């Protein structure tokens, strides 16, 4: 049992004087946490799997009927759901690629001795510290065709960022890139500063060009940490809800999480939305797994 693995307290320590042993600490902090996890995460997860095979609606008192795989069949043959998945995939690719480019680029710029580097880095991190809903509301104003500052600054007249069906998704992705590039930058900076300086010196002695140095030294050594950034950002981008929900209601920018929200909490099709949530969960797990496999490979090198 776990008790045998816990070392006893040093009798002269303050904790011991106050009478708190490791076991009491475990009971006080770990057990409630695990209880919370089981009650609010694990249990609903399993419970909703059951619901996904029924026609249950939380808004009525009618009993739930077992319908087998009907929900899954209906969802996977619904062209609207497929279009939501396609939109989400496009969004994830644009947004994560953009964040990677901008974040890593800024990290490269910052990875040298410049004055006020600390302050600059902190300021660049600000977007990421804001709440998603607030960012959404701000950018909605920035994008406004009549009085928005973006059109004014770029001289675009009344260009419709959010109400143009073709542009809306890019506008949401752009906001996401603005908000989360600092996250990639932070991780990249950590990676870059860990690259041993002597490798660059050796490359300089061999008269290696800047491109060669970048592709042969910098990138391979930073790759594992960049992969972690990509995993986090992909998972997050897949789940994006608040930003897109606030910014636009274009069907061309309706991410899968928005469809899920509408199905679950506006239409109260509880059973079917559980099934959709499971489909999303499986997809995210699959994608993350591919990344993790790749990450392990990169690490081995």
């Amino acid at each position, binding site marked *: 049992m776990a008790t045998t693995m816990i070392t006893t307290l040093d009798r002269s320590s303050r904790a011991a004087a106050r*009478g*708190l*042993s490791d*076991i*009491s600490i475990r*009971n*006080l*902090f770990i*057990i*409630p946490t695990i*209880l*919370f996890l089981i009650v609010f995460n694990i249990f609903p997860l399993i419970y909703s799997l059951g619901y996904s095979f029924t026609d249950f*609606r*939380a*808004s*009525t*008192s009618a009993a739930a009927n077992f319908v087998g795989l009907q929900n899954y069949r209906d969802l996977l043959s619904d062209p*609207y759901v497929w279009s939501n998945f396609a939109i989400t995939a496009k969004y994830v690719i644009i947004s994560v690629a953009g964040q990677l480019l901008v974040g890593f680029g800024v990290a490269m710029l910052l990875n040298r001795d410049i004055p006020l580097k600390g302050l600059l880095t902190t300021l660049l991190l600000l977007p990421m510290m804001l709440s998603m809903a607030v960012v959404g509301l701000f950018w909605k104003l920035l*994008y*406004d*065709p*009549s009085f928005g500052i973006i059109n004014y600054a770029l001289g675009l007249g*009344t260009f*419709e*960022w*959010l*109400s143009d*069906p073709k542009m809306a998704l890019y506008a949401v992705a752009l906001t996401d890139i603005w908000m989360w590039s600092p996250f990639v930058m932070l991780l990249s900076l950590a990676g870059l500063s860990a690259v041993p300086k002597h490798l660059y010196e050796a490359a300089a002695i061999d008269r290696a060009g800047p491109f060669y140095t970048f592709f042969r030294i910098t990138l391979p050594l930073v790759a594992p940490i960049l992969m972690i950034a990509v995993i986090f950002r992909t998972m997050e981008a897949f789940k994006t809800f608040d930003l897109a*929900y606030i910014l*636009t*209601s*274009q*069907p*061309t920018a309706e991410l899968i999480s928005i469809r899920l929200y*509408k199905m679950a*909490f*506006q*239409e*109260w*099709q509880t059973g079917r939305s559980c099934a959709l949530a499971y489909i999303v969960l499986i997809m995210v797990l699959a994608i993350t797994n591919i990344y993790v496999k790749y990450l392990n490979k990169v690490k081995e090198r």
Partner: protein
Amino acid sequence: MRKTMTSLLAGIGLVLACGTSVYAQEKELTIFWAEWDPANYLQELGNEYEKETGVKITVETTPWPDFQTKAFTEFNAHGDAYDMVVGDSQWLGAGSTGGHYVDLTDFFNKHKVGDVMAPATVKYYAEYPGGSSKYWAIPLEGDAVGWSYRKDWFEDPKEKEAFKAKYGYDLDVPKDFKALRDIAEFFYRPDQKKYGIAIYTDNSYDAMAMGFENALFSFGGELGDYKTYKVDGFINSDKAIAALDAYKELYKFTPPGWAKSFFVEDNQAITENLAAMSMNYFAFFPSLINEASNPNAKNTGFFANPPGPNGDQFAALGGQGISIVSYSQKQEEATKFLEWFIKDETQKKWAALGGYTCSAAVLKSPEFQNATPYNKAFYETMFKVKDFWAVPEYAELLQQLNQRIYPYMIGGEGTAKETLDALAADWNATFKKYGRGQ
């Protein structure tokens, strides 16, 4: 061991402490509504009730976008946080068949509520299923979609002259949908940052449906047959197709970026000098005659939704009735409040505070009709309103409408006929799924 037990209990206590609620006062009733001015007026009315009876009334609110979600989350959990709820008219089906609302039929018959309130409000805010004489709510806030317009733009002699020269008739409050369109086109001047008209286009809840219904009903179209659930030949009839095209036509004359607009944006169109005319619920008009919130307050006028080509004149219904939540522990207290609420003098007070009373007597009184510039238009509208489906699965029907109409209206995909045929097929499938009609 004892210490282990104590700390274990302390840990569990910590978990429980986060979940326990504070017990409410015995003589207190909580009413749940959306966050808007009428809810503040209701709170003031509640304060009067407290003065008379000693029972405290608390009106709890939440922003409109979460209103439906939050209310139904509480219902579905059988929670007693709210004793009464001022629910949207479309909720009646879900509220009654789901067992969330208390059946008020006896209350209705005993107090003859059907004679006190305007007939349309009883039909749409209280009765479910339609024509069943079973009642689940007391009409509280009457509301419908009307129009505001810029009197100064309309009355400018130069504009009047130019309009007459172009269209051959006088520029005035639109007397039908064609005039509405002409005036919108006339004032659409992007180079001057002036636009013709502001309409509802948001597809996240019922905005798009309400806007389209204004055209649909005035063109003589219908969503379907509310008794048999037949939609073919209704929602995709020639009249409905013409109405959708007329509504889409108006979108051409809206300010830029008008693809997610609802009541906030439509009032802004007037306050920010963007549009000549703007569609909105009557409930949002008080802020347009208030100089603090509308710099053009003196120059803002109002009119009822104009008739269509065949002279039919209807408007989309908003508004809410008040229901007693069946999970409330204080249903008796709540009933007493409703008894007080339907009294004539309470209804007069309610109207004076700014609430849109549904009491037929108050609506018809000259003092009500002359109290504000829009009350007369409101009175006229409340006797010719129609509403969306009120079945429990209304949200699915609404989502299907948004899904079909939005890409056509905003993205210009397909034709009106294709759009409405597809919508009819969606609705048929949904009604079939829930075993209605057939």
